């Protein structure tokens, strides 16, 4: 029981998203009422479980949690938002929208609501509206990198790579330490066929996270491209020997990684792939 609570807290702390796990841990807690033992945290657990339940579509549990929360905090925006999410889950998007709207009228700076609203639009399949809403939102809550990520994704769906890149840049400024973002940015650049930059970003990824396969692949791609193409004139561009070195490195690493642990088939394939580049 207790360690279940502990695990839940850890999950909360590292905002990982494992709805199934959360539900598996949380359900007994809540059903047995043991949750009340961890007094202040209980409500957080409720919230957490509620969201998770929604994700895995256990509406009953979610409802139960939300009920409990409403009973405890009547008229709390935070709880209301959960309601909204519930509606979303069951697909009553309009009701959800209504709720978020209400919350926002209550407090126009309620970030959660605002974001949910955007997600809602997206869910309603109105990407453009979603984008505009999100832009508006970000114009205010500039520092919310998640928002920017969302925006980037939206743009990507619309294949608007330039804008996506812009968003990612913002994200990079806000969360410069996360290699995933660098990776994403790199791939966007690559998609934009800006191989120079892409290469650098991929390198950064490798720098941040050693032997990151995806990064290595990225590098490989870039280098092969760049090497094929004529050496560029501009100063910032990577020098040929560096390119070669990096290329070599990437190859070496990839092989190393695969040989270290990698299913035979995939290994052979990848090696083949490397050769045929």
């Amino acid at each position, binding site marked *: 029981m207790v360690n279940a609570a502990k695990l839940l807290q850890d999950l909360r702390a590292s905002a990982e998203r494992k709805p199934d796990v959360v539900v598996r841990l949380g359900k007994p807690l809540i059903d047995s009422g043991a949750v009340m033992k961890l007094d202040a945290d209980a409500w957080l657990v409720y919230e957490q479980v509620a969201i998770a339940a929604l994700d895995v579509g256990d509406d009953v549990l979610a409802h139960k949690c939300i009920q409990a929360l409403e009973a405890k905090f009547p008229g709390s925006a935070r709880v209301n938002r959960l309601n909204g999410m519930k509606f979303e889950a069951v697909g009553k998007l309009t009701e959800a929208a209504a709720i978020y709207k209400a919350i926002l009228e209550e407090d126009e700076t309620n970030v959660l609501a605002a974001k949910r609203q955007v997600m809602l639009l997206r869910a309603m399949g109105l990407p453009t509206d979603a984008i505009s809403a999100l832009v508006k939102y970000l114009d*205010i809550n500039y520092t919310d990198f998640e928002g920017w990520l969302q925006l980037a994704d939206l743009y990507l769906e619309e294949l608007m790579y330039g804008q996506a890149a812009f968003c990612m840049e913002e994200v*990079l400024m806000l969360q410069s330490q996360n290699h995933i973002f660098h990776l994403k940015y790199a791939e966007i650049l690559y998609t934009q066929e800006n191989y120079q930059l892409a290469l650098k970003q991929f390198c950064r990824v490798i*720098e941040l996270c050693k032997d990151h396969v995806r990064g290595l692949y990225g590098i490989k791609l870039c280098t092969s491209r760049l090497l094929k193409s004529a050496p560029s004139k501009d100063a910032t561009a990577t020098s040929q020997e560096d390119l070669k070195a990096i290329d070599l490195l990437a190859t070496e690493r990839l092989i190393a990684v695969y040989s270290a642990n990698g299913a035979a088939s995939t290994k052979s394939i990848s090696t083949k792939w490397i050769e045929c580049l």
Partner: protein
Amino acid sequence: MGAWTVLQERQAMLLDPAIRDWVLIPIMIVMVLVGIVRHQVTVLLNGTPKKADLKSARETKALQRGGILRAHGTHLPEHAFEARKTFLSDAFEKGTYEKDPNASSKPKGNVMQDPAYVETMMDGMKKNMMNIIPQTVIMAWINFFFSGFVLIKLPFPLTIRFKSMLQRGIETSDMDVSWVSSLSWYFLNLFGLQSVFTLILGSGHAADAMRDMQAMSTMGMGAAAGPQMGPTGQPADMHKIFLSEKENLDLTEHEWGLENVEMRVLVKYGKLPRSVLVDYKKAKSLGSASSQSASSPSSASAQIAAAASSSPAVTAGKKKGRRQV
């Protein structure tokens, strides 16, 4: 110090156990109690973070934006940086982000009429009160109650300078300074109990901190602060602030952190000697403007350190799926 400690032989004295039972321990207990109560009351008193209206939020965020750009611009490639720089600086100049762009033109009214200002003011005062009042009260209480006798012997020597302070109300000149009166015991507690508080309140406290932090990092919450305050608590003229921010921006030279990333990677994998980086630095600092040179050595070493330590395990462990919809 020297001279004095020579003077003092080891002085043994018997103290009335009643002092221990009725002063030494009680003071400690009371201090702990007061500490707890104070913590609770402060929490009660400081007002809920009041909802800022969009405009002001936007205002502050915009400013942050400038700051962030300056701070972390280095992660951006040249073009991206320049684009933002230009955009922001003229936005600031125009005051696009200000709460009411024509604020600067209208004459400064009495700050007291600005409710936001007053409120924040009150908050600040309340906090200060909570810090000052209990201490002064306790001090007075102790001076009043427990004066005129020695309370305890510090197990370490002190210089004669403390005598007048630590032995207030003791009318002898020959007493070793390490015999101290209740006031100094109070101070000892004041400082010593801090960590005890972190033990008592701490756990819950820490959890709070964690929660807030998480809330911030994930939901971008809590950052909704009131209007920008100058150090004096005066609501400073936003336009000025923006302008200054702009100037900062203009001064900022962009320096791209990925310029030599390949080299770094190579070094990291030991394909190149570490020295390369340093050489690179040198070359760079020679080549580029002097403004960089200031920051260069530190970063050089930083990179070396970077190259030195590497621990994928942790990052992999902690980085997994830090995304949320």
